[in-house]
């Protein structure tokens, strides 16, 4: 074994900061009277960690931990996810009567897990990060203890998550047995040397299933709608962006670095999964009359789009995927922010019915929701269009023109349920008692940020594009 010293921790500095922050938040929670303090502290910690991310490039622990542009890009997604989630949560937790400071600590630890996943150069570290992320999110899913739906979501998520962890571990074991290493780049070298064999391909399938679970690719998405619907809305927002992006980060690194030489073999499977995911997500989303559940299926569908980036592969494909996930994070969190805004004491604000005539009663909320729905559909000049455009461009560039056509068709289907929300808001008359908005300064800030970014990227995408392109290498 190599010499162990402090300098090995340098690339991990952001992670160390986040871990300390998690502990600190937990302690602050014990003494703070206002639980929001814990939330603000976690945001401050993220700011510090984010500052150190670009200064921490390098490998550590013999390549087990890799901090590079790729991981840095994803870490920024996680940070944004954390900040926006915290902003969304502050007032929401009070309304849900679950205002406990542990929430923020769990969010920080979950984010730490994601960061480890993005930086994992070794399957063991990947597993470690994944479990840290997942365990925290299981608790978060069941955070409203007095709500049966929340508890049910947590139990389902936990049991099925354990199932997927088992798949991942089994895949890792097989790979280890076949190549004698868990280091992703060494696996890549060994795979090139040994070529394709049935056991190796089976292990690839196991890993694919495990990542498919975390990214909610059909048919491994089954948990997502129930969990997303049952979990506290702020947690749903958090889970639909962060863990998904983290899984994609690991997915991309393991498959393109580790099994890159076999890509011609596994892309076929992934294409099938992608189409299946888009089909299931979009078609079932049409059926929903609960916005949260609709967004849950929409998030499944978006995973189907994002995975195209891995199918395309190379820096071009990865950049398109990263770009997409970044944009998706903002628009999805924004949409959930509106859902949270409609939630107030006694009113769930999740039913599509609640959005009837929103443009008349709350024109501002309706306008903001309109932006997010347009963006999720992919209508210019919103960010969603940019994300889809570059994804399609990458897909077409890789010679999968037909796949791009299929994706466009499913996109068109998705317009049906996204624009239905718009239709409810703008074309129908408000019914019964008007919904009251629970707008807090923090939620307002979150809405402002997401709206601005969604429009800004839509109008001026090139900084993001070049950042993603640079990060993808």
């Amino acid at each position: 074994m190599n010499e162990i010293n402090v300098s090995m921790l340098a690339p991990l500095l952001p992670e160390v900061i986040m871990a300390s922050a998690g502990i600190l938040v937990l302690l602050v929670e014990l003494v703070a009277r206002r639980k929001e303090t814990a939330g603000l502290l976690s945001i401050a910690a993220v700011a510090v960690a984010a500052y150190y991310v670009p200064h921490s490039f390098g490998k550590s622990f013999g390549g087990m931990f890799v901090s590079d542009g790729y991981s840095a890009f994803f870490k920024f997604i996680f940070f944004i996810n954390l900040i926006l989630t915290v902003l969304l949560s502050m007032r929401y937790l009070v309304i849900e009567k679950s205002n406990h400071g542990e929430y923020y600590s769990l969010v920080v630890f979950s984010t730490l897990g994601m960061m480890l996943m993005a930086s994992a150069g070794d399957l063991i570290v990947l597993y470690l990060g994944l479990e840290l992320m997942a365990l925290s999110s299981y608790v978060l899913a069941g955070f409203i203890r007095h709500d049966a739906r929340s508890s049910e979501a947590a139990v389902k998520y936990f049991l099925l998550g354990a199932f997927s962890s088992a798949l991942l571990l089994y895949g890792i074991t097989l790979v280890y047995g076949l190549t004698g290493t868990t280091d992703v780049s060494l696996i890549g070298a060994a795979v090139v040397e040994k070529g394709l064999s049935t056991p190796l391909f089976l292990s690839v399938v196991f890993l694919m299933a495990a990542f498919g679970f975390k990214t909610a690719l059909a048919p491994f998405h089954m948990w997502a709608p129930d969990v997303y619907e049952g979990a506290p809305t702020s947690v749903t927002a958090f889970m639909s962006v962060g863990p998904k992006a983290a899984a994609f980060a690991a997915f991309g690194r393991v498959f393109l670095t580790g099994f890159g030489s076999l890509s011609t073999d596994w892309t076929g499977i992934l294409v099938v999964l992608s189409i299946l995911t888009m089909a299931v997500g979009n078609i079932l989303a049409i059926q929903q009359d609960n916005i949260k559940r609709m967004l849950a299926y929409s998030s499944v569908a978006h995973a189907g789009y994002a995975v195209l980036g891995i199918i395309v592969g190379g820096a071009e494909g990865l950049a398109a995927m990263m770009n997409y996930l970044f944009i998706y994070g903002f628009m999805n969190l924004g949409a959930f922010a509106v859902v949270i805004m409609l939630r107030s004491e006694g009113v769930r604000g999740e039913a599509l019915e609640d959005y009837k005539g929103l443009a008349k009663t709350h024109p501002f909320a309706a306008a903001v929701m309109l932006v997010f729905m347009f963006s999720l559909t992919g209508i210019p000049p919103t960010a969603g269009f940019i994300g889809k455009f570059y994804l399609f461009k990458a897909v077409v560039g890789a010679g999968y023109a037909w796949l791009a056509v299929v994706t466009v068709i499913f996109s068109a289907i998705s317009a049906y349920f996204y624009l239905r929300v718009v239709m409810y808001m703008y074309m129908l008359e408000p019914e019964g008692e008007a919904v009251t908005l629970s707008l807090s300064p923090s939620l307002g800030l979150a809405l402002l940020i997401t709206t601005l970014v969604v429009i800004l990227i839509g109008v001026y995408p090139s900084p993001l594009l070049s950042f993603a392109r640079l990060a993808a290498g």
Partner: protein
Amino acid sequence: MQYYLLIPLLPLGAFLLNIMLGRRVIRRQAHWPSTLAVAGSLVVTVMVLLDVMSGRTLNEDLYVWIVSGNFKVSVGFMIDQLTAVMLVVVTSVSFLVHVYSIGYMQDDPGYYRFYAYLSLFTFSMLMLVTANNFLQLYFGWEAVGLCSYLLIGFWYEKRSASDAGKKAFIVNRFGDFGFGLGVIMVFLTFGTLDYVSVFDGAGGVAAQTINILGADVNLITLIALLLFCGAVGKSAQVPLHVWLPDAMEGPTPVSALIHAATMVTAGVFMVARLNPIFSLSPVAMDVVAVVGAVTALFAATIALVQNDIKRVIAYSTISQLGYMFIACGVGAFGAGIFHLYTHAFFKALLFLCAGSVMHAMGGEVDMQKMGGLKRYMPLTYWTMLIASLSISGIPPLAGFFSKDEILWVAFNGGGVGRAVWALGTLAAVLTAFYSFRLIYLTFHGEFRGTEEQRHHLHESPAVMTVPLAVLCVGAVAAGWIGIPPIISSVFGVEDANWFAEFLKPVVGHPEIEAPHSTEALVMGFSVAVAAVGIAVAWVFYIRNREIPAVLARRCGILYRLLFNKYYVDEIYNATVVRPAMLIARYVLVGLSDGVIIEGVVNGVPALINRFGARLRRLQSGLLQSYAAVMALGLFLLMAVVVMVLK
């Protein structure tokens, strides 16, 4: 030189400010952000002009929105001599109109909305003229159209105003359809939408033909004509001129800015900007010249008998735009832009004077009910008189120089040139006549309105008359930077046509080899016919006022033809509008509600819904079935792998 960006950005900022805060916060102060912004743009424009005059031009992509292969959507700016001239015209007239509107729109309930739109328009127009690629040109083109639509229908409670807005919008669709096709053709042909790249490549495809319905058509000609369709719509040339007179339903400052000085000249600007394309196609050039000449005469004849003060000026605008196209069509793009530039001043002045008159008359537009206003509003009278002299082409006012240059280059244009010159000269007589008919009817003679109106008569406030005075200076002196050598040599200056020299790098300048005596003759002739026009108007409306009525009775058919604008609206109604309505009502609605839309819009989702309902049953909420589905999926994948690898 990056400060040029302020020119469009300032009005954009003012627009955002007014549209967001106008209703609640800014309200009656809405003119401040907009006017200050455009004043700022004007100042920066002067700085840019000085830069350009010292030889610094610029063409850069500021930012690229999306790229896909050759297709690039970017925002870029091209600042050269042509742009600089347009910037000066747009910002200066826009500024004066902003100021004027403070008085004119004073008590309007939509005050903030008016200024917001005005700023948005200014921004769009500036983006249009500074574009360095076709797509941005197209967006600016559509954006100014949208603003025009919003401002024509500004008093949307008034049925005729909202109808006029719609009419302008729909008629422009026809032209823009061709324009859009032209842009697409440009992209297909050159693989890029960048001006410079397209211009560089234009020479290479000059000889290419393309087969359309069995006929070989020259590619460049096709592109140029398609693009020209857009200009015909936007600049209200025959046969798409019908929207502009109706557009007078909008507030008068809007007519001055959008429907006289700037937006309607976008077509001329576009042809001049794209002169490397147009120059390659003699056919397209001839079409441009002929359409321009026909329009110039056609609109002038209608203007002879109209009684609505604003409509007379509107037809005169159409006619003058025709002159600009004449110039472009005979290859003298610089002369066209020169006329655009002088026209902006005297025509904006005419409109603002008309606005001033209407202001005094309580919104009255019928000249039959005016008369003798000279006494009540001397400043308006004198400025309008000067503008009328200018438009009639009386030296040494601005209109003389630009119109004379156009007629002179047309005279020497070869091909259709001589015929076009004849039409243009004929139109010049009519121009002088109707302009002075307007003056005499409005300001001379006895007041013919109601007693109440007479009581109300007053000169407009300073905030309105000062812009008139400033524009008047332009209407007098704007032409002095383009004095032909034949005149300047009298004063000992050999080459005083600085304007043509200035624009030469962008649009070139036709070399005319003709004896000075001929030039003097042509010039003298056009001045003489203008004087004749004025004299006839004087005879008709001052000296012997029965003549018009007698003439109208004698030539009843001709009079009615002119008075009803050649029945063009009626013809369109019968041939286009009515059939379209019928088709919409019976065929489309019948088909769509019955079969197509019903079938597609409801059928496909129904199909998906049915499929979805099946799928949904899988999502039972039962944990074990979820695990089972996942496991099944995994086993299927494994089975596939094993089978494939076997």
